[in-house]
């Protein structure tokens, strides 16, 4: 198990960088937004991985258990709000993409840049 103790963080690193890769290398704006979502989920994973305590349980206090260990509630609070903010910003990004499509007829970044240069 000791070997796997850092596995969550490795997955975090991979997801974070895959998300970043999509944002950098893909031209399509919707794909970029999806990449951003992956990036964001990677950060969520990092925070939630930090909250786990061995032998702990979800931080909802139980009256029936004495000396129960609880996992750390603080990262959960931060991420809980971040998820809802994430969907709101995703919607904002999509709205902008839709408007760009209406104005330019495409959402591929290289084509957009070409049109702007002309």
């Amino acid at each position, binding site marked *: *198990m*000791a070997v*796997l*103790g*850092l*596995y*969550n*963080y490795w*997955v*975090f*690193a991979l*997801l974070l*960088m*895959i998300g970043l890769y999509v944002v950098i*290398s*893909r*031209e399509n704006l*919707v*794909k970029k937004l*999806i*990449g951003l979502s*992956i990036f964001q989920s990677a950060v*969520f*994973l990092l925070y*939630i*991985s*930090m*909250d*786990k*305590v*061995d032998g*702990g349980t*979800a*931080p*909802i*206090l139980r009256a029936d258990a004495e000396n129960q260990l609880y996992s*750390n*509630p*603080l*990262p*959960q*609070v931060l*991420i*809980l*709000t971040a*998820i*809802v903010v994430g969907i*709101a*910003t*995703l*919607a*904002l990004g*999509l*709205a*902008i993409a*839709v408007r760009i*499509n209406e104005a330019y007829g495409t*959402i*591929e970044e*290289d084509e957009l840049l070409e049109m702007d240069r002309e």
Partner: protein
Amino acid sequence: MITLFGVFLLTLLVITTVGIVRTQNLFAAIMLMGIFSLQIAAVFFILDAADVALTEAAVGAGIATVLLLGALALLDDTERRGRRASRLAAVVVAAGTLLILYATFDYPRLGDPAAPVHQHVAPWYIAETPRLIDTPNVVTAILASFRGYDTFGEVFVIFTAGIGVLFILANGADAARRSDLPSSDVQGLRHHLVPRLVGRLLMPFLVLFGLYIQFHGDFGPGGGFQAGALISAGLILYALVEGERAALRLVPQRVLTLLTVAGALLFVGVGCACMLLGGNFLDYSALSADAVAGQHLGILLVEIGVGLTVSGVLLTIFHTFAARERA
């Protein structure tokens, strides 16, 4: 054993992500995002973050898919493969991955009770919540009371995002609504008898469950954010099976705007009431002679405010996308 489940799910998560990157069909990418969201929610659950898993389920798997599909209906659904050579990006990303992987070896291992995160305020929150606030769900206590400022800010970010979407997309939406909507928008899925019946049957349960999550949030997993997402999911379900127009007749856009604003103002109002009663901003203890009762009242009101704003904004966004005609 549970750790192994986590490892297993995380591996699936990475595979899914690679699939998302590789597919050029955006519709397929959105479906894979739905799977991604379910997987990461299961991982959150296994890592003891029940509230977060609930939020991710309602928001990520339900509403994000609906919104992405709504936007995709207005766009092309295939991505053209970029002509720009992305070798530089690959190199940068590979270097970054190695750097972060190298850094992880200094991290405390998963579940280490001696990790720095668990040393400072967190034990205090868990120890003092029963005395100061007396709600079993520590997450709700921190969200609404101890770190109320944070939540206050987040609610206004959501509020602003909703306004932003309206600004960007809603002009001319009224004109579109006055002229005839595409007939499919009027109909929704009306002529599909089975989904329509089941959808109508489930809608009240979703809203009811949302209300349960809203008001049971002090005792179990839940709270305003999750409840707002679930209630708006219920109404989105109604809009899908009965059509946009019927949904807007049920809850008109005016009401949604009102809900959004009322929620945000309720939050501010509770904060200001605390100040008027002699406490600090969002210091609910001032709301009642009994500090704990004051906290209960404050958390209840603030969570209602959050729920109203979240459901209002999410539904507004959904309707705004649905009302838009494809260019």
